[in-house]
């Protein structure tokens, strides 16, 4: 096609960093082609043929070679009937169609409920080609009343009608697989013996994906899901196929109703029996399923293990708690001891300070005594003594122990120099006044 097709979509931008020598990169080659026949018709083919032939003439060999490569679109028709036809079946009376095995009639015994509609159609055609009454008549082998041909038609009618086919499949004994006997099971082979049973029963399930038995490596979940499913099996199996014929004349209405009721009851009874049968079947399988025992044992072992673990854990926790308690106690004792020591030390220091202060106070008191209480002449008057001692007392009480100590030291060095001592006191007093701890008027003797 020479004309361009315009596509209203946008090309993506060149990714960042894309680079190639001549602005293209080859990343791969095309996948292999399929050889097919093109139909040799129409003007476009003729143009193709002209190009391809190019005035060449092809040979028979080339024809064969080319045809070998080509992908076939038509299936080969095979008219072979694979199953041998039982002479008893061939001479069946078509009227007894309910008793006939429809799959066997069509040569589908191997497939039964597994046969696809296409298979049934093909099987039907093969049978028709062989058994058509017009063919039989033409070759002089007259089948009385076209009996087998009618059987074929009936079988096809039933098997190609989904509802009718289900009714027949419901009672298709030949598709059943009997559960294994105890004797068979005693040799083992649980899975091999039970699997076909469940596979065949699965055909009745309304739900499409039916869990299968599995094997010894199936997980507990899988096995549980399996038995769960099969104990709650939702089956479409029904039993109308085995109904007694209802007379279709209008004469005997009561008789008709009677048979209809009988049929309904029979269907219900069979359905109940079938449900019970399946339940028993699952019970039987469950009873001998080694995996169940295995899982129980594992569960028990699991329980013990969990108990031991729990105990060990409790022990560990208790030990840890005790350790923590001891540690706490130790810390408490330790801190109590230090506190006591500290207290004692404090006491001693306080006592020492007290003693020092006492001593210093004595120094202060004797310092004024030594200079005769600043008396210039002889004995100081009692008033003078009291006044000076009052002032000393005043100062002593207003200063800290440290100031007291330094005051004492300073006074000790003054060696009865009254003036110097007085100055020292005056200085101390002034300092107190400055600090606002003392009023000038309170001091009577130092200034």
């Amino acid at each position: 096609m020479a004309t361009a097709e315009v596509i209203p979509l946008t090309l993506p931008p060149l990714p960042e960093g894309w680079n190639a020598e001549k602005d293209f990169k080859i990343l791969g080659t095309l996948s292999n082609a399929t050889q097919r026949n093109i139909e040799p018709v129409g003007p476009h083919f003729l143009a193709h043929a002209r190009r391809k032939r190019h005035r060449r003439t092809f040979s028979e060999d080339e024809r064969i070679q080319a045809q070998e490569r080509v992908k076939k679109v038509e299936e080969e028709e095979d008219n072979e009937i694979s199953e041998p036809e039982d002479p008893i079946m061939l001479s069946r009376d078509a009227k007894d169609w309910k008793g006939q095995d429809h799959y066997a009639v069509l040569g589908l015994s191997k497939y039964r409920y597994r046969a696809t509609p296409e298979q049934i159609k093909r099987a039907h055609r093969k049978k028709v080609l062989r058994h058509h009454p017009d063919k039989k008549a033409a070759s002089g082998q007259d089948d009385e009343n076209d009996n087998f041909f009618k059987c074929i038609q009936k079988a096809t009618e039933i098997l190609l009608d989904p509802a009718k086919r289900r009714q027949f499949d419901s009672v298709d004994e030949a598709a059943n697989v009997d559960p294994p006997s105890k004797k068979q099971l005693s040799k083992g082979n649980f899975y091999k013996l039970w699997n076909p049973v469940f596979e065949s029963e699965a055909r009745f399930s309304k739900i499409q994906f039916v869990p299968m038995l599995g094997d010894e490596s199936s997980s507990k979940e899988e096995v549980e899901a399996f038995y769960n499913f099969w104990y709650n099996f939702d089956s479409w199996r029904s039993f109308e196929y085995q109904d007694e014929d209802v007379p279709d004349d209008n004469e005997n209405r009561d008789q008709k109703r009677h048979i209809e009721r009988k049929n309904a009851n029979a269907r219900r009874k069979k359905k109940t029996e079938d449900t019970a049968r399946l339940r028993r079947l699952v019970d039987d399988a469950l009873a001998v399923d080694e995996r169940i025992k295995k899982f129980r044992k594992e569960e028990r072992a699991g329980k013990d293990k969990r108990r031991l673990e729990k105990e060990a854990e409790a022990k560990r926790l208790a030990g840890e708690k005790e350790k923590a308690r001891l540690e706490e106690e130790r810390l408490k004792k330790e801190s109590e001891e230090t506190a006591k020591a500290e207290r004692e030390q404090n006491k001693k220091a306080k006592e020492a300070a007290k003693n020092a202060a006492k001593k210093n106070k004595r120094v202060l008191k004797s310092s004024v005594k030594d200079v005769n209480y600043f008396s210039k002449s002889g004995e100081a008057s009692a008033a003078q003594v009291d006044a000076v001692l009052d002032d000393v007392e005043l100062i002593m009480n207003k200063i800290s122990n440290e100031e007291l100590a330094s005051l004492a030291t300073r006074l000790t060095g003054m060696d009865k120099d009254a003036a110097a001592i007085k100055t020292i006191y005056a200085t101390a007093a002034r300092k107190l006044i400055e600090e606002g701890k003392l009023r000038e008027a309170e001091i009577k003797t130092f200034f």
Partner: protein
Amino acid sequence: MSEGPAVNAAEWFAIGISFGNSNSSIAYTGPDGKAEVIANEEGDRQIPSILSYVDGEEFHGTQAKLQLIRNPRDTVAYFRDYLGKDYTSIDPTPCHQSAHPQQSDSAVAFSIHDANDEGPSSITVSEITTRHLRRLKQSASDFLGKAVNAAVITVPTNSSAAQRGALISSAKRAGIEVLQLVHEPVAELMAYDARPETVVVDKLVVVADLGGTRSDASVIASRGGMYTILATAHDYELGGANLDQIIIDHFAKEFMKKHQIDPRENERGLAKLKLEGEATKKALSLGTNATLNIESLTNGIDFSSTINRTRYELLAGKVFSQFTNLIEQAVKKAGLDVLDINEVCGLSQAVHCYTRKTHESQVILSGGSSHTPKLASRLQSIFPVTTKILAPSTFPTALNPSDLAARGAAIQASLIQEFDKEDIEQSIHPMVTVTPHLSNAIGVRLLSPSVLGESSPDFQPLIDVETALPARRVTQYRVSNTGGDVLVRVCEGVREIKTIKPIPKPKEDTNGGETDADSELESDEEEEEIRQIVWNESRPIAEIALKDVKSGSKVEVVVNINSDLGLQVTARAIGSRGGVRFAVDAPNVTSDGSI
């Protein structure tokens, strides 16, 4: 024995013949290039493939069909599928009400009184075919005023070499040189494609040929005007006869209600019911009511009754499903989905689907039963809305489905009658027809339009899967509004069917909680899951950079694929000089990699 002397190419006067089990048609392509189906002397374009002998006189077509009532054993019908077949592998069912097929050596024959005053003679199916084709040739020659001596004849897609050979020699004995046998569905497709308004596009076509006693469905890839059959499905027990049976049973029951006699048990009664019932069925394709009138149906009782279309469609529901099943089966066999028979390419954003205008899909309904309106409407609901269902009731300009095969054959006849036989043989040789086809689509990555702005680039096909090689396609793409450097990434892609479960919509309460039954039904339908096609890149082939492309301009990509799967790619901005051109080697071929 050949009638008339051997002729050489220049003297072929060829028609197209569709030779069916039920009906045959003849068509001719005039000098104006238009194919027309020719009416025979009785005015029939669908000529029943039936011959009947009464007192040594041969009746053909509709006249012979009428003899099925009075003279069934000397009337030969439904014989086409016996030609070239072994007696053991034929199904005699369709002939139950006419001459029965018999074994003659290993072939098939009919025992009929074809000459006056004589006992029955055994006439082989080859001879019957010759006689039938001779009558067709005569009708065409009379109409065209010139002796026809060659034809293109349609055959089923699964006809064997033996069947083809038998047809060719039967035709030769009738004085018809078979220039070529063409497959029925391909001829039918060609009848549509030959219309002047048709443009050559790549498309997938389903041809459903719904006949009288069998039906066939084919899936055909049409690529560049060349056709490849991808798959076929056949049902030899499904056709208009099944629908006739519905009508017969219906009227028989009506009759029984009144007269307590089953008219089907009387051979002549059944033959009358079949003939008239078929006419009633055809009438129901046009009208909504049809009447059946039969004089002396059985025991001398006249019968008249009416049926309406709704009733008929109800009764025929199961048969209609068989037809649609057959068609779906063919689509499945081709490894496709009904969604593939569709002209919409689904992009990953379901919001914006765009239609590749040059790509379309069709379901062509051919064969007489395709006139049935319900069949077309059933197909309409199976295939996507964009798929054209080419049938009279669904497509206004549809061709007559009964004519298609003959028209297609006539078109092919006009194309090749210039050539001599040897030349034609060589052109349809497998060395020419067996061709490699792409096993994956080839495409480029493009930005999909999306409500959320530009998304990551997606694969979009540019050459479809199953395209016959060599092939060349030219496509143009947009460049973003800002222009600049763009990337052309050529790759193979595969399509996938994605199923989207719809998000349950919260109940709308706009009309004050008042919902009527209808709207509830509708919302139920909306819950259905959506299936759509999504393309995924499966294999990168090459990347090309186009630098400094002007904003708003277009980029043209030309891909050329050789028969050996080597390919050449050219990409350039339209209006600019230069561009990038390179070649990719065929797989498993080593070379220096240069062009």
